[in-house]
């Protein structure tokens, strides 16, 4: 059977085989990692005390960048909406577009991507460095479960704080668009607010927050996984960091589509 694969086809076949085995092994390790996290979740006494600090680092410290991005997103949304709607469509539709787009898509996704860079890289680099300098081993020898001590607080913090940050980002984006509408588009507050409220349903907010929480979970777990499984030196830490950011950005977009398919 194997003799069929000969000559020029051997190298590509081997490559495909190796990649498949590598991917499967990676997924297996990731599954094990997740199972470990699940187990460590029960150890609240260990991860509980570290949670607040991580919430500060992952959530509160991410607010400035998230708000900055959201503000400019809001401004651009308002301007482009009014540009697209020239003449034919009433102005208050700027409010409709800003509200819906910000809540359903741009608020969570842009914040998610920004935090994939900021938080994901930070986590992967930190854990990666701790791994290559044997700090994680040291933790284990001192009787700590590093998953409970290092990983779970970060994952929980991201799960809790991403929705909070996204809530602020949504509000910021809408306020910025509002200010833009008033100052640059000659709209009035009642017009803009009318558009905002026109098609609003509370589920929009729920959807936004569900997305944000799933992004937080993805970014933190992926960051932790790559950091945790780093082996080597500084270069390996760099590689893990890059992989964590790239993969979590991709997963964010996939999740984005997934929620759109399942929840909308």
């Amino acid at each position: 059977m194997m003799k069929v694969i000969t000559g020029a086809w051997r190298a590509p076949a081997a490559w495909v085989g190796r990649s498949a085995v590598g991917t499967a092994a990676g997924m297996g390790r990731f599954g094990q990692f997740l199972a470990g996290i699940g187990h460590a979740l029960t150890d609240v006494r260990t991860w509980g005390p570290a949670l607040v600090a991580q919430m500060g680092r992952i959530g509160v410290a991410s607010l400035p960048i998230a708000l900055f991005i959201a503000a400019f997103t809001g401004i651009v949304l308002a301007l482009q909406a009014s540009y697209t709607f020239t003449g034919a469509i009433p102005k208050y539709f700027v409010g409709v577009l800003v509200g819906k787009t910000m809540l359903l898509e741009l608020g969570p996704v842009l914040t998610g991507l920004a935090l994939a860079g900021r938080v994901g890289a930070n986590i992967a680099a930190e854990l990666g460095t701790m791994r290559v300098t044997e700090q994680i081993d040291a933790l284990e020898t001192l009787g700590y479960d590093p998953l409970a001590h290092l990983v779970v607080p970060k994952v929980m913090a991201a799960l809790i704080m991403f929705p909070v940050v996204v809530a602020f980002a949504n509000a910021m984006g809408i306020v910025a668009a509002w200010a833009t509408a008033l100052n640059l588009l000659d709209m009035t507050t009642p017009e803009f607010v009318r558009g905002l409220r026109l098609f609003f349903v509370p589920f929009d907010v729920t959807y936004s927050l569900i997305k944000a929480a799933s992004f937080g979970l993805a970014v933190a777990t992926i960051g932790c996984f790559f950091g945790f499984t780093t082996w080597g030196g500084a270069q390996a830490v760099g590689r893990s960091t890059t992989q964590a950011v790239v993969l979590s950005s991709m997963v964010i977009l996939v999740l984005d589509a997934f929620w759109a398919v399942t929840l909308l």
Partner: protein
Amino acid sequence: MSMSNEVRVGAVLIAGIVLVVVGTIWLQGWRIGREDQLVTAWFREVGQVQRGNPVKLRGVHIGRIEEISLDAGGSGVAVRMSIGSDVRMPEDPVVLLSMESLFGDWQAEIHSRARFPLYDYAVSPEPDGIPGYSLPDMSRLTAVADRIAENLAVITDRVDIAFTDETALNIREAIDNIQRVTGQLTALVEAQEQTVRDVAVGLETTTETLQQAALSASRTFSLIETAIADGQLASIVGNVDRLTAQIDTLSSALVLVSRDMGGVTESADSAFASLHAIVSALDRGEGTLGLLLQDTALYRDLALTSSLVQDLIRDFQRNPRRYINLRVF
């Protein structure tokens, strides 16, 4: 250091939760602390109405649509609306669903039945349910009107080309006048949409007159159609004459509709009068209307226009109010 971090995280967390809760309530239109009453209206169908659309009384926003559900029997739709508890319902209330603007946002308006007695309201299966009627979607009407306007434009162009002598110049001038008047009418209707809405009651009383006028107009158009098909120039001339008379009737009906349109209809009158003069001139053998008949393409357009006008008139009869709201081509 660690304490201040805890305080910061706590503050952000609380602020975030408050933001989400308050923001959601605000976006829903601040309905907290306001006592609401729930009323249900019944419809045969509800068009594009959605949850959250506004409920209005005399043009004032008094609540929103909370729930739309098919009646168990499937014969009707129940629309539940929450409105301020201090709102007093009018005598014998009815609910009309209509478009709030041209862009798909609908509204529910509460009226007294005496105001719009003609609509075919659904009967509520519950004793305290309100009868309702959903106004038809305007988009179909708009499409027809647009096509007619287009065809008319083509015909006017062709007529412009077909006549080269003095009569033609006169006709062109008359057509220009009609175009101008049409433009003015359109502009007026757009500018005066609210006024026209207000006089909708007046319109109800004149509907009958309009219907008669429209019927005559429809007869006239079909006469034009047969005349052209038969190639009978003389009868065309006669029919155009009668058409002009019918248009005069129509325009006087419009005068009834709105005082504000008086000025414009006056100029319309003069435009139609000059058209009338031209037709008389044609009657005396001046000019070459035969040219019009040699152009089969023009004939087709005319025939098509005529049938479109009939369509429009039928719609017009059914929903005179929407039609006047929309545009005069």
